[in-house]
């Protein structure tokens, strides 16, 4: 029994050490965001400095990270909503109705899920140029309407949880098909929408390559693109301001995670076991 206690003690120590190692980079980032450039050049410290305000002024005189924040939020929210709504509508049609080409569509999905996103990147760029939507958010947002993986996930969910009889009853009551979709199917899908929604949001929020290619105007930069621009800007001369810029892009997400972590983690568990 004592041996077990000792083993447990060692393991907990090791786990706590691992957590500390995991958080050192973030801790250094936050501490250095409050220190002046000369303090950072002199050496490292575990104690915050008092240059936070000065760093903030330096940073915002070159670049408004909050604009990047707002842009990323706008894109990610639009993507998440379009992805959820149209994937649900498509999954609904695939599950409830019989129609020509149904199997062709379904097989195309499965194949397309394996195609890496970069394959069509150059084509997407050129298409956007032709359509005159280069340097706008449209090429980032519109493709969210057609997300094979989400449709696939919703389809599996509907097959196992939605009784068709509920729709028959609705039809007898004279409800239209689209009305039933809004009133019956969407509420049933809600847990699946939440699961996929979180990952869609995170995916869009972190996307760097596509906005890097599509967006040119600095005022439209999303947060990752702004991070890339930061390293080549005059801000890079002031390390304190650099750390602060990175911290502003990271800390709000960490706080959001604190509130959502339980939910996110149970989603991963569910997703992987089903997948």
């Amino acid at each position: 029994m004592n041996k077990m206690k000792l083993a447990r003690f060692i393991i907990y120590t090791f786990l706590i050490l691992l957590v500390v190692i995991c958080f050192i980079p973030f801790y250094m980032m936050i501490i250095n965001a409050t220190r002046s450039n000369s303090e950072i050049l002199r050496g490292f410290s575990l104690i915050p400095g008092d240059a936070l305000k000065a760093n903030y002024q330096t940073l915002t005189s070159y670049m408004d990270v909050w604009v990047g924040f707002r842009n990323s939020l706008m894109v990610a929210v639009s993507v998440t909503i379009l992805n959820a709504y149209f994937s649900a509508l498509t999954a609904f049609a695939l599950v409830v109705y019989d129609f020509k080409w149904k199997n062709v569509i379904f097989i195309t999905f499965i194949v397309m899920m394996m195609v890496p996103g970069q394959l069509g990147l150059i084509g997407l760029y050129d298409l956007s140029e032709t359509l005159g939507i280069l340097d706008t958010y449209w090429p980032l947002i519109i493709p969210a309407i057609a997300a094979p993986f989400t449709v696939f996930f919703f389809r599996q969910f509907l097959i196992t949880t939605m009784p068709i009889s509920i729709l028959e009853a609705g039809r007898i009551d004279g409800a239209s098909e689209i009305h039933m979709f809004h009133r019956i199917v969407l509420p049933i899908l809600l847990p699946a929408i939440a699961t996929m929604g979180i990952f869609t949001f995170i995916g869009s929020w972190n996307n760097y390559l596509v906005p890097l290619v599509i967006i040119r105007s600095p005022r439209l930069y999303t947060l990752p693109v702004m991070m890339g621009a930061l390293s080549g800007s005059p801000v890079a001369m002031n390390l304190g301001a650099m750390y602060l810029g990175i911290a502003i892009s990271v800390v709000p997400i960490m706080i959001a995670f604190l509130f959502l972590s339980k939910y996110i983690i149970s989603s991963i568990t569910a997703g992987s076991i089903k997948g």
Partner: protein
Amino acid sequence: MKKGNHQAYLFIAPFVIVFLIFNIYPIFLTFYYSLTDYTGMGGIENARFIGVDNYIRLFSDRYFYQAFFNTIRIWGFNFIVQMLIALGLALLFSDIRLKLKGVGLFRALFYLPNIITIASVALLFSILLDWNHGGLNQMLLSLGFIDRPINWLNSPAYAQSAVALIGAWMWFGNSFIVLLAGISGISKDFYEAALIDGANWWQSFKFITIPQLKPILLYVLITSIIGGLQIFDLPMLLTDGNGSPQGALNTMVLYLYNQAFKYNNFGYGATIAYGLFFITVIFSAITFRTMYRKQV
């Protein structure tokens, strides 16, 4: 089921239209470009059709081979470290005798780096690993581990290891959660029966845990390969975006991006995209085959 209804076409129309225009069409367009010397400017109608010339060039392009091997090396190192940590943790937390507490808390803490923007992480490490004023060298110096600063991002081996380890740090939490869920799903009866038969820890790990975990391991492996072959944000932002030091961080997608959008070689960039695609397909197929052949 039936209720044959043309409204179904209406419901799938947005998906199909957007899918064809923004998904399928760009893929075909990219393939067409890969057969031309299109620069990306001046319109495709002024580009020359050159057949498979780009593909021949790809096969003899030593930068593409370099990018391929860099990508594989970074992914391989990353995967080994990530899986060792994740599997180790999953085994610890699922051990019926240890009965560790705080699974929820540790899962959340270990998962956290996953949701942080990779671009921010890359930028953070580009200054933490800086030779002169980086946090890591300063810390190691003041702790006395080293007596002169190490130029991490100037050495190919260190730089590749840095990308692999930063990746492992970001993603081990995700693998841990998935593996733990998988192990928790294995029936306790197996382990109890093994215990009665006098099996030791290693035997029950080898003959129960690993075989039962196979579908989950396959899932983790495939997603890791597909993601790993596409690594871009970290190598792009950790150094100068051209693959420094000495081309060690030149990965396949970085090479694609630079060729197409920095050097205006749309045609050749498109060829790299297809090269990457075929490599992904081949790797996924090999993984499937080996995982399932062993089972039979």
